[in-house]
């Protein structure tokens, strides 16, 4: 039942021998040692495990690895380019949009996905995009502020 699956992770081809039904989250964390993607609930309800699949935010705990084959997978480790943080990463730091930090990878990738398709989101669009990404430390005011900041920097730049 193990099969060879080719994944495109953060711009690199990675081959794994695995049960094709295994959650992408598990393959990323255990087979590829990309532990920045977090387990929170295993049923798509906290979105700590969010990654981008062809630019769209998905919950990797609910994504069988076979369905990710051949698609561009971006994890939190792949967002910074050439040693420079992605503007969303910078904005989360600047807006102090974290306490424990466990939800941050999922929040950052959800935001990156939002801004890719909606460069100037309204407040309502921001809140709707983040809905379901659970943060238990901050509430959401500082996180919404970080998204606003990232969107502003994007339109300025």
């Amino acid at each position, binding site marked *: 039942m193990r099969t060879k699956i080719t994944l495109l992770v953060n711009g690199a081809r990675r081959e794994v021998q695995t049960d094709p039904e295994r959650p992408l989250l598990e393959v990323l*964390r255990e087979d590829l*040692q*990309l*532990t*920045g*993607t*977090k*387990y*929170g*609930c*295993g*049923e798509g*309800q*906290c979105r*700590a495990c969010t990654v981008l699949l062809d630019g769209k935010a998905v919950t990797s705990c609910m994504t069988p690895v076979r369905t990710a084959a051949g698609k561009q997978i971006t*994890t*939190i*480790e792949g*967002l*910074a380019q050439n040693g420079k*943080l992605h503007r969303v*990463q*910078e904005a*989360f*730091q*600047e807006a*102090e949009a*974290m*306490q*424990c*930090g*466990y*939800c*941050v*990878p999922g929040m*950052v990738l959800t935001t990156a996905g939002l801004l890719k398709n909606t460069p100037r989101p309204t407040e309502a669009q921001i*809140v*709707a995009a*983040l*809905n*379901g*990404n*659970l*943060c*238990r*430390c*901050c*509430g*959401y*005011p*500082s*996180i*919404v502020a970080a998204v606003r900041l990232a969107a502003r920097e994007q339109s300025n730049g």
Partner: protein
Amino acid sequence: MSSQFQVVGTRPVRHDGADKVTGRALYGADIQLAGLIHGFVLRSPHAHARIKRIDTSKAEAFPGVKAVITAADFPVTPDRIVDLGEGDTPLSYVRGNMLASGKVLYKGHAVAAVAATNVHIAEEAASLIEVEYEPLPCVLTAPDAMKDGAPILHDDLRMKELGEATDKPGNVAEHFRHVKGAVEDGFQLADKIIEREFSTATVHQGYIEPHNATALWNNDGRVLVWCSTQGSFVVRDVTACVLDLPVSQVKVTPMEIGGGFGGKIPVYLEPVAALLSKKSGRPVKIVMPRQAVLEATGPTPGSSIKVKIGATKDGRFTAAQATLAYEAGAYPGSMVGPGAMCVFAAYDIDHITIDGYDVCVNKPSTAAYRAPGASNAAFATESVVDELAETLGIDPIELRLRNAAKEGTRRADGPKYRKIGCVEVLEAMKNHPHYKAPLEGPNRGRGVAVGFWFNVGLPSSVNIAVNADGTVNLVEGSTDIGGTRTSIAMQAAEVLGLPAESVLPSVVDTDSIGFTAVTGGSRTTFATGWAAHDAAQDVVRQIKERAAALWETTADKVKHSRGVYSCNGKSATFAELAAKLGETGGPVVGRAAINPRGVGGSFSGVITDVEVDPDTGKTTILRFTSFQDAGRAIHPSYVEGQMQGGSVQGIGWALNEEYYMSADGVMQNSSLLDYRMPTSLDLPMIDTHIVEVPNPAHPFGVRGVGEANIVPPPAAIANAIYRAAGVRMRRLPMNPPAVMEAVWRKP
């Protein structure tokens, strides 16, 4: 912000920010070790049952399995009373909650554990363990558990009554009483007396990172542990105690922690992983599935509370009485103690009697949750105070101000307040634009409430080593849940006259720093920050000696101001002197190990506007302003972050969150789909207003800010719902069905 400080009160970027936004921060489950295998814990399907027999042979024979353990694998030692930081408790109870022995006491109670080459094999093998149970009737609430004839959890439990041991069996572990004055005399002086009963549901702390632990029982006999905990030394001491080892044989490395809120103080997995490691000879990692987190860790107690307050016509409280019964869960030790201390803590009342009951029920053993016990109690008191304000025709903030606790007020449980900020918080609320803003429209209402929570002191240790490039490495034992690395480093930076970025903080393992108590009790910025202040002063003292050596004078003649050392016209910066340590005597390390006194409590308040949908009973928060006395806000953004976070948890507790239990004690909503915590769509912006009444006992005036903010929200929302919908809600959560039912019952 006061100009007397250079660093305190500013908002530097956090030291751990880059690691957290890039996914490089290593949390407990991220650890990789050579030869690592994975553990899975088998849990009871029954809420209450006798274990007749456990047969692990099929699991042991399953391919890929390396070890199987049950409670029989604990060392055989006589039971004794131990104090592992949360009060006296029998060792058998501590062990019993890690792996059940004799009986299971809640659904999800750990029974056995398996380690295998991967977690799926471990899980499958665990399902092959045969456990023969004799199911017993269960009891799920404090009032039911206190009845004669209720099923009894612990055959050996005898009630402690007013401080004395008794021979009374049952589920009540303890009944205690606080008395101040003569409460009946006080009620005689009242023109109006209101007495009401309240109840609150079991709720969970809800951290996003599940519990996890990795252990290696090394060949030299030492047990190495990596885990997610609020207190590495608690894990060390509990693990050593349970495994009957000297504390020096256990080394705990605290990994990054993905939220705790009190729920990551208890130890569940570490000794289990250690025993699996001992048996298999391999390092073993266990990560709790979310369902186990909800069913078997933490929650905060459900409670039943009666509050009675008497007042004169002009709004002076004459007497107050409360009876609090809190569900401890499976083992004694609910948070009724602090609940009872906090129930009237915001008020200066001459005559008070408070009774507390700690009651065992067939639910998971309860743990601390942010100001544990206080939110339940404030929900009751602040609702009655609101009703008194309405009855007496006095503005609710004004009524609270007339009775507010102040310096010199003695609480019913004994202590007399030093300088506190209760009045200042209430004044800030009264003068805030939110309170003066009109609130128009049907089905809308505004509510207020206040709350109190302690700071505990407890031991903290900090070492500061000076680097030749003019920076310092600060080493501490307090795990950082919400930004304390930075708030502690800032206090050292202030003393050293350096920018916050020049102090590099690290949270280290239990071998590498002196004993440090848990990150809890709003103590870390307060106590470990104090240790950082003292360790930095130790550095300054030594740097003065080095400057004196260079300038051929004595240290007492060297002056230090904002990072510049001077004497007789000569001066040098910290960095210049740090570069010359080699020629002036070698390395400089400052140290402090303290157990601070003079802790000061923190008061908080909430003003909130809500709208209640008359057709569905759904409450929407329109506006929410949180007030809190921070003493001195070291990093104001972090103080605001704590206030917002506590407010959001309080809103979830007020409106949504609840353990739905079947009659046979099975949680019906043990997933994050059904245990619904607030999301971004549920919430308004949370406005914050920091009040600063410096704590005179702390070098910078700090009061811990982590917890008091969760105390007033449920009561404030209840009071707002009353003004919006005309119903007094006396049970949490105040979800749509509960509000609709109250509306329909309204006469």
